[in-house]
Every structure is written in structure tokens, then in C-alpha cells.
């Protein structure tokens, strides 16, 4: 599977969403380039998570197309879909760890599903991923219910990274983390980006993470994308939500 270096990793065109009578998205266009970190920001209820769910193929949009790695996500065969899905990793907002499995089995799950590696190699890989996200080997046998909120996030990230994905979706990765852990998380993403040539699509409300990691921002408001671009460009966009939002960032920076 050869992908042109300059081709967008994710391309959303004319996407519209309705839940019953409520219109969430109107004709959204969005491009994620290879190797960048794109953050989606917007007020609560502006449809950030809904957009993410459509991009990862969990919710078919009423109109519009989603291309991932150059394939139309909703019009490709089961084989292509499976291939696409093994090339991305998703960190869900609440972690979405399998509660019946312990941390080790959660992280090993996608690796075992691939049926490529022998069990002892899977063990090494899982332990590597756990140490990568800063989890102790002793945590491997814990069930998700025994973990703290921050540890759930880390374990879920380890699972999302299990297959060495090219594309990583993060839904509120630092929400509920203390500032130190949040900073460690930012470092982690930076390192992974450098080493794995990672493309990241992230939803976050954490202004520090936003400023520290994002190459570009995509602002959702009034059911549309009102601005896309680097942080300093966006700050100049004349839109009430954008202005109010970035006044906060500046205030925090001072």
C-alpha cells in the first residue's frame, strides 16, 4: 500500500449531520495532512466528538464523504476497512477499556487479533507500550475498575498505540489529568510523533496542550468549520467564538 507523501491522511468533504431535528454539522470540509497534529476545538455540544466518530467510521454521516489514507471510509469493502482500522489508533474520552480484561489483556487485544506475532513477542510489546505511557509492570494485572482516572487514560493510550499506528485520534486526552501528567503526556506525544512519523487528530479543551502540541487548529462553531490554520493565524479570525476563546489563551499565557 503506497501512499503519496503529500496526500492528505484524512479528508472530509461536505459532511452534514443531523440528530433528529437538531443539525450538528452543515457542509463541513476538513483536511488532515501527513505528520501534523490537528486539534479540533469548539464549545461543548458543537459536535467535536460527533465529527470524530464519523471520521473513525462509527457513525455514517447523512451527507458527505470521509476519506482516510485515500480510501472512502463508508464506501470501501470490508477488507479495506479492516486494513484502514489497523493503521489508526483511537483514544476514547472515557478510555473505553474492556472492563472484563486486565490492563495487559487490553493492550494485547489488538495485537492478538492480528494473529501475526507469537505470544512471547506480544508480551514484550505490551510491556514496552506500558512503559512507554508510564505504567508500572505491576499495573498490568489490574482490572480497569481498579485504576485511577489518569491510569485509565494511559492504559487506553497504550492500547491505541499497540499496533504502531500512523494516525492517532485522541478525544480529550488530558481531561482529568493533573498538570504534571498532562505535561508528561504532551512530551509523550511529541516523542511518538518524532519516532513514529505520527499524524494526530485531537479534541481538547486543555489550552496548554493545545498550544504545546497543535500544528493547526480547526474551530467548530455554528455547525461549521469557522477557521482552520496555525494558532497565531486563527487568533486573528474575526468570529465571536474564536475571539472569546483566544482571549483566554492569551490571558493564560501571561
Amino acid at each position, binding site marked *: 500500500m503506497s501512499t503519496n507523501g503529500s496526500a492528505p491522511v484524512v479528508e472530509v468533504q461536505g459532511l452534514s449531520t443531523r440528530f433528529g431535528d437538531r443539525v450538528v454539522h452543515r457542509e463541513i470540509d476538513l483536511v488532515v495532512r501527513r505528520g501534523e497534529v490537528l486539534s479540533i476545538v469548539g464549545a461543548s455540544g458543537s459536535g467535536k466528538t460527533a465529527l470524530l466518530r464519523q471520521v473513525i467510521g462509527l457513525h455514517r454521516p447523512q451527507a458527505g464523504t470521509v476519506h482516510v489514507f485515500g480510501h472512502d471510509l463508508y464506501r470501501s469493502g470490508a477488507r479495506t476497512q479492516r486494513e484502514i482500522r489497523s493503521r489508526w489508533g483511537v483514544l476514547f474520552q472515557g478510555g473505553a477499556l474492556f472492563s472484563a480484561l486486565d490492563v495487559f489483556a487490553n493492550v494485547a487485544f489488538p495485537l492478538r487479533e492480528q494473529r501475526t506475532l507469537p505470544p512471547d513477542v506480544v508480551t514484550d510489546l505490551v*510491556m514496552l507500550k506500558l512503559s512507554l505511557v508510564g505504567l508500572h509492570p505491576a499495573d498490568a494485572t489490574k482490572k480497569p*475498575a481498579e485504576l485511577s482516572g489518569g491510569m485509565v487514560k494511559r492504559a487506553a493510550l497504550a492500547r491505541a498505540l499497540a499496533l504502531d499506528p500512523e494516525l492517532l485520534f485522541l478525544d480529550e486526552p488530558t481531561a482529568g489529568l493533573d498538570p504534571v501528567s498532562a505535561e508528561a503526556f504532551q512530551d509523550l506525544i511529541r516523542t511518538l510523533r518524532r519516532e513514529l512519523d505520527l499524524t494526530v487528530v485531537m479534541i481538547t479543551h486543555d489550552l496548554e496542550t493545545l498550544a504545546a502540541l497543535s500544528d493547526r487548529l480547526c474551530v467548530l462553531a455554528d455547525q461549521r468549520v469557522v477557521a482552520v490554520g496555525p494558532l497565531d493565524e486563527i487568533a486573528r479570525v474575526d468570529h465571536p467564538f474564536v475571539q472569546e476563546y483566544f482571549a483566554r489563551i492569551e490571558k493564560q499565557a501571561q
Partner: protein
Amino acid sequence: MRTAGPKAITWGVPIAFLRTETTLDGGRRMVVSGAWTLDGLRGQTRSLRAPLAAGAGDPAATWDLASVEALDAAGAALLWRTWRRRRPERLHVRPEHEALLGRFAGLSGEPPQPAPPDPLEPIAALGRGSLEAVGHVTGLVELLGQLVLDVGFLIRHPGRIPWREWSANLYRTGATALPITALVGFLIGIVVSYLSAQQLQTFGANVFIVDLLGISILRELGPLLSAILVAGRSGSAMTAQLGVMRVTQELDALSAFGVSRTLRLVLPKVLALSVALPLLVLWTDALALAGGMLAADLELGIGSTVFLRRLPEVVPIANLWIGLGKGVVFGLLIAVVACHFGLRIRPDTESLGAGTTSSVVTAITVVIVADAVFAVAFSGVGLR
């Protein structure tokens, strides 16, 4: 020289390659190339196993990773395992892959292993099982006691009676169960009537079908059938609802507001089912008798007028009261058992499934045990 991997090379598809060479001085040289990634290794691990093991068995072998195009954690892990988790003495590796291999070197090793099986495990399991059984009994008694206290509280504070929850539960457990209990009752009535009719005909005792159906349905079949249906239907729903409320921390939220979960969640369910089940029993009785009457007419020629005139003459009304009384008790038991299991569910999916299963099984068992108690206690009533 040996080559692992497929004979034909498909360009554009990442594949992991391994070649074993003999160097000029007679040593072994393992040339690793291609894509040592999860994608590249797919379908290759089996054919790579033998050459990798051979290379690993030779401590003097040189490992040449310089022509590796792509290396990810999966490929690195496979090599690391092959090297028995040690860096080979002669290793050529690209600087950009060095960091990845270095990370494995820093790993602390195996995950903590589960404790070895205890030889006394069967005895421990027996003890745990008994303690759990005792726990269930004390839990049920505690819950019943709490419900009595709650009723006392509500008698003193009638304004706090949760009427809305009660009526919602009454509708959910009672009204929506009407179709299924009607169908099952009617069919069982027909079946019992048909089978008995054939036996009675041989003795010429046709008319006793009314006595037989009247007593068996009113006293036994009606209450038991509706109780078992309701235990499967509403008991499981109650357990699952409380269990999910535990998983989503709604139970904790209630407690944080200082709202008693037994008063707000359990009591309305128990009271609603104690009212709904006797009404369902009455309904099932009626439909089962109708089914029996139909079959009696078709099979024995006993018309509905004869049937209905004979019914009150030969079946003492006490049988109906016993049946309805059973309905009240069964309803109470099913709801208490369902809530007890619901409140004990731990916040994971497996516990939810197991809790719902044991709730239904226990509820049905408890209903049948209670039915036996009724049979013995009221053996002198209503049978002449």
C-alpha cells in the same frame, strides 16, 4: 545462502526479509532487511522462525540491520526475543533504529505472573462459596429489614411516598406483561385441558374436567406461570437497571444527594411488583381457564355455559384467594431478589451479566421454594 520469505517480491507491499550469509572467515552473518513492521511480518513469522532461531543459536553471528527500511516496535520485539533479550555482540544497526532497540533493553521484563495454583484451592473455593451464600442471605435479610424501616418512615411521612416511581414500575412490570402472560396462559390452559380430557374420557368422568382445571389453574398454574414469566422479564430488567446505575455511578450520585436508594429505587419496585403480580395472576387465570374451556368444548363437548355454571360449585373460592396471595408473595420475593443482586453488581460488564443471570435463576428458585411452602401450609384449605 538461504532466503526466508516468499519467492516472489511484490513491490509496494512491505515485507520482512532475512538472509543468512557465510562471511569470508567462515562466520555467520544474518542480514535483516525490508519492512520489519507488523504489516511486513504478517504471514511471515512462521517461515522466519527457523532461520531466526539458527542465527540466535550462534553467539558469534553478526547481525546486520543496516538495510532495514522500516522497523517498528513489533519487528524490534521479535528480534529482541530472538536475541534472548540481550544485545548481540556484533550488531550493525542504523542510528534511527537504535532508540527503539534501546527501549527494550530498559524494560524490566516479564509482567507479574499470577500466583501458582494453591493445592488447597478446592477447600478455599468451598469456603468462599459458603461465605458468599451466607453473604447473600444476610444481604437479603438486611434489604428486607431496610424496606420495613422505609415503610415505617413513609407511614410517618406520607408526603415522601414515591408515587411516580411506583406507578411507572406498575406499568412496566404489570401492564406491559399482559400480552405474553395472556398467550402463555391460554396455551397452557388448552394443553392441560386436552391431556386431561383424554384421561377422563377413559373413565367416563368428562365433567370433572371443570374441577381439575379450576383447582390446578387457580391454585397452582396461574400464579407459578406468571411468576416465572415476570421473574424472567421484570426481575432481569430490575437487576440490569440497578447494575448499570452502579456502572455509571448514578447510585453514588443518589447517595451523595443523601437520597436513600432503597426508598427511591428498591421500595417502589417491590411495592409495584407485589401489586402487579396478583393482578397478572388473575389475568393469567382467566385466560388459562378460557383456553381450557375451549379445549373442553372441542374435545369433550362440555359447553361454556355448563363449564361456567359448574366452576363456582366445585371449586371453593379459597383457591382463588390462595392463588392471589401467592401472587403477592412471589412478586415481593422476585423484586427483592432482583434488587439485591442489582445492588451487588460491581462496575464491570462481566459482573453485570453474571449478576443478571444469578438474579433470574435465584428468583425462580425462590418462587418454587415458596410455592412448596404454600402447598404444605395450605394443604387443608380449599380442597375438601
